[in-house]
């Protein structure tokens, strides 16, 4: 008996000691007790009907059920436990138990118990705090070392140690962060005011960071590379990266990345004339490219000569709003089963912002040429997923399964719309893709060595109120409405309607997450540390202290970026961070 008591005490002590630190949560009102009859009845059903497979459920307290997010107090329909039960009629998975459904009495017992929890007024709150890390002073670099480091990262070469700026850092007149900030300021487009650098260094700096931007928006896998032979020479393949570069070097607020109304025109300065298309495979292909045509070469008399204007070459010296565009009369929907159109196509105009540029849409639309969105299976949901990835740094799903329950379409012919686990992703990306529903990928000719563009259909039909139609053949002609359903990193649910891509982008750029993402990207570039962003309100208790620290830092950087909007200042703020000054970036 004594041994039993001692062992129990020992186990309890170990449990308390191993309890995860930093995790504080409390119930706003009185604790629920397990002595209630409702809980007893509920527990009996669980034991009898679930514990054979889910043995841990037997030991769950009321608190565990709530904390594990299986139960939403007072709301059985939003509770994952209830919605997964067969015949619960909640629109959930409804596939448990796997072989035999609960009886009506058993279902009612569970439902009653969950509903009854509301009256006890239970609310769980999690207190989020971001710890700080004290880095050892022995690993701290000197001011000149920090400056050399940031100079290399920003320009791709070492600074001369007899240069004016190096000496200013050396003698303490300026700090590394300010010095590198100075280099950035002098690298902006059309700058003539060189105190510490020169045109050549500015070009290197702009190129260095443009390469980072092209690696950030990293998917250039055009649908068919053959059809990009001319595309790359008519509109830039790195358009989205150009938007990033434009924001950085033309002093725009970071929100302009998505809020810009302009299609961008890169101004380049080459001393020598370029004679080669950007994309070529061999001499044979190149010779064929010399004579460009429009139209359908499968039908006699249906090709027309064409002389597209090529993009300029040389170092990027400025980025401007594009004022005039190339257009053609004829184009085709694809290169087999061809339909030819003659209502005109503008070749190089985007919609709105980086995510609305021709090349970003093409690279990420995930649809075949000629396809028109129909609201069901055929919508540009890959684009929506990539927007979340590239500009919010979020991987699907970005909402909780409970958020998706009310959007589950039990009677849908589209299988993934009927399951809550699938809808956890599709609830976000499907309505979001409505912003570019009017996009259709088309070719200028059927030769297979052609150019590929996005046609934006005009709105000619009225809007329908169905967020998730199974199939609507006029979907692409309706207003580009949709809904943005998204949970932020801090756990806040956004559920807003938008009427256009411009509108959607305004919603995105109003979130903190948009800026936190930018901060994490530049932070990664400067330190090599990539911070994964997810709903930390949900997972806070599970993540380690170093992660909490880093997330806290990028959130703080993001908040500052949102306020001032200047990416150069963001970079400066990163250089100022203690972790940046450490020899091995803190050795985390």
């Amino acid at each position, binding site marked *: 008996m004594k*041994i*039993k008591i001692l*062992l129990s005490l020992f*186990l309890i002590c*170990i449990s308390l000691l191993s309890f995860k630190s930093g995790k504080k949560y409390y119930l706003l009102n009185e604790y629920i007790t397990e002595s209630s009859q409702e809980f007893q009845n509920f527990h009996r059903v669980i034991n009898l009907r679930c514990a054979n497979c889910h043995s841990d459920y037997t030991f769950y307290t009321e608190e565990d059920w709530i904390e594990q997010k299986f139960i939403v107090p007072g709301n059985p329909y939003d509770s994952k436990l209830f919605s997964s039960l067969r015949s619960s009629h909640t629109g959930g998975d409804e596939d448990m138990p796997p072989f035999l459904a609960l009886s009506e009495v058993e279902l009612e017992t569970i439902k009653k118990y969950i509903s009854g929890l509301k009256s006890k007024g239970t609310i769980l709150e999690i207190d989020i705090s971001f710890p700080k890390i004290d880095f050892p002073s022995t690993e701290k670099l000197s001011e000149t070392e920090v400056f050399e480091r940031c100079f290399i990262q920003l320009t791709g070469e070492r600074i001369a140690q007899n240069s004016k700026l190096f000496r200013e850092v050396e003698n303490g007149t300026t700090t590394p962060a300010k010095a590198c900030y100075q280099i950035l300021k002098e690298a902006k487009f059309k700058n003539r005011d060189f105190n510490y650098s020169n045109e050549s260094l500015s070009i290197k700096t702009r190129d260095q960071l443009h390469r980072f931007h092209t690696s950030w928006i*990293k*998917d250039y*896998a*055009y*649908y*068919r*590379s*053959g059809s990009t032979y001319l595309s790359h020479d008519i509109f830039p393949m790195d358009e989205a990266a150009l938007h990033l570069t434009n924001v950085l070097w033309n002093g725009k607020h970071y929100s302009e990345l998505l809020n810009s109304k302009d299609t961008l025109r890169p101004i380049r300065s080459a001393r020598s004339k370029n004679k080669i298309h950007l*994309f070529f*495979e061999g001499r044979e292909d190149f010779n064929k490219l010399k004579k460009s045509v429009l139209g359908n070469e499968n039908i006699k008399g249906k090709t027309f000569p064409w002389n597209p204007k090529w993009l300029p070459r040389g170092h990027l010296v400025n980025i401007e709003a594009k004022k005039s565009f190339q257009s053609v009369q004829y184009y085709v929907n694809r290169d*087999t*089963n061809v339909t030819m159109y003659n209502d005109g196509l503008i070749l190089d105009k985007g919609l709105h912002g980086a995510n609305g540029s021709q090349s970003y849409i093409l690279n*990420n639309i*995930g*649809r*075949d040429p000629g*396809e028109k969105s*129909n609201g*069901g*299976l*055929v919508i540009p*949901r*890959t684009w929506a*997923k*990539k927007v979340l*990835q590239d500009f919010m740094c979020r991987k699907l799903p970005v909402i909780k399964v409970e958020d998706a329950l009310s959007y589950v379409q039990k009677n849908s012919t*589209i*299988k*993934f719309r009927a399951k809550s*686990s*699938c809808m956890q*992703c599709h609830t976000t990306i499907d309505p979001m893709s409505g912003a570019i529903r009017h996009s259709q990928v088309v070719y200028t000719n059927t030769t297979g060595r052609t150019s590929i563009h996005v046609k934006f259909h005009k709105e000619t039909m009225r809007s329908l109120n169905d967020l998730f139609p199974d*199939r609507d053949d006029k979907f692409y002609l309706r207003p580009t409405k949709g809904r943005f359903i998204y949970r932020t990193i801090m756990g806040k649910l956004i559920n807003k309607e938008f009427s256009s891509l411009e509108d959607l982008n305004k919603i995105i750029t109003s979130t903190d997450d948009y800026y936190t993402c930018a901060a994490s990207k530049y932070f990664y570039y400067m330190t090599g540390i990539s911070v994964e962003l997810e709903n930390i309100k949900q997972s806070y208790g599970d993540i380690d202290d170093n992660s909490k620290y880093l997330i806290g830092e990028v959130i703080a950087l993001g908040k500052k970026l949102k306020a001032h909007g200047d990416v150069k200042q963001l970079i400066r703020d990163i250089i100022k961070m203690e972790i940046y000054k450490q*020899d*091995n970036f803190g*050795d985390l």
Partner: protein
Amino acid sequence: MKRRYFLAMAGASLLYPFRGILENTYRSLGLSNDQSSSKKYILINVIEAPARWMFDTILKPTNAHGFVQGKLIPTHFKKTGSAPFDFEYDYGFHEVNGYQFPYMWQFDIPTADGKTTPLSNLAENMFIVRGCDMVLDGHEINNRRLEAPSIGSHSISGLHDANTSPLFGCLSLEGAREAGTAAQAYSSPSTNRTIIKDSTENYIEYLLRPFIERASVNSTIVDKAISEALTSNKDSHIGKKLNSNEQSKKRAANIINQHHQVITREYNDNVKKYQDLINRSIQRTNILGLTDKRVPGLKFPLELKKKFHQSGKAFEKVDYLGAYKEIDYLVLADDVRTMFDTAEIKGLAKQMALAEVSLKYDLTSSININVDCLRNMKTKTTKLEHISMTHEGDVVHFKLKSSDVVENLGLRHNADSHKCGSLTSLLCDTLFWRAMASCTYELTRSLKVASTELWNNSLIHLTTEFEREPGDIDKGSHHGFTGHTSTFLSGAVKKTEVIGNIYTLSHDPTDVSPGCGTWGKAADVKSLGNRKMVYGNISSSISNFLGCETPLPHEKKVFKLKNGKITSLIEAPENKEFMEKNLKTEKAV
């Protein structure tokens, strides 16, 4: 509770905090199931998607399965006459290990010892997954998805490399085509692929040269100093990585320097070996029903009976003569078989040779091979535009516009045979797959001989972007992206198996030619919730074999590795009836 029982439980529970140590001990004693570090993945992607219905798209698994013979889906000639167009196609079967394989499986393939072996021997360790809907059309996008099924995410080989930390990251053997390939979709959290371009003279030399060059410079004192410097920084995580690299470098250098002559010699011998297999598979073959009799090419002047399309529209020149087309050219050879006397598959011998030595000497964990089609088929030819066509009543006359329009050219067979006729495609694709079968057989044999463990841990994935749909008339076939076949070979496959469901006959109006016959279009799979198999199901299965993360975790596996054996997780293959509700309304993502 009895005291003894209680004390035993309590004692066991006290060990709980030390489970980490126990796990490590277990692993170090080799008792762990974690063997992903020894797994090898070889993706052999035949680009441009040649037809596979004569090779490994199993259209009728057993005699009990429905099958409708398509007039433009042949495996051989039922008869060949002495004049152009005097031939008849047939689709034949041959039983292999309980399955009805296509006609060519009854024949032998060349082996490395100069002899032959029944092709059916290749099927012993073959696991065929048919009836996969690729959803999206297009070569490049589907090539990429074979390696990286989720756009923007890490790829299969990339995730595998991250798990295994090989000496060389995935060997990307680009082949003749350097754009839009599976290899280019490689993306790994920690490793980079090793690109070997087709223009590289000697692949193994290119790979090993840095180590050999390094060894040729006597720099003991320099290396010692560098090692000492790195050791002084060994406690930081960067220091640990660099020191670990130093160890790996020394180990690799030792192995390579000790064995590079052997490895290089073996590679060079392998190149010859595989080249010989390719040549013997394609050139001067004598395959019954295919190349055993003269196959006359086009000859002008030519007279044919007037024909019309179903719509009532008259046939055009290309419609009449399409069977003999290779893109823009018509084959005029007196005997089409002679085209193959000079045919080659560029780069394949080097690719297979490198794959073999890399696996045997553990130089890499994954290999990505992009295979080109048949080239340099020398023949008499002319372009369609040089033929005149005139009508006289019910007869259509064709003749050459002038005598100097006939050329002797080395044609390239466009595996993406939109503009290649059924006759040229039948011969080219059959002989091509024969060569692939022969090379793959040799690779599997070499791995088996090298080590049973290596063979059991290797997964060869022979595939294309998708199958082909025949056209409605004979002037080309089209993308059958709603039907893809992936064939796997491994020691973990203990018996021939075919899985996946297809339609016997599809009437989907969005098909290129609905009702054209059984060609391999994906049908619903009950075990997947009555929906079509998609490539994510295949990629999840591959990742399971390799023991790495899957790029598409929400897609169920269709096979898995269990107790060293690949087992199917779905029902036996079915040929299903097409129903109205199966209309391909549009494509799902």
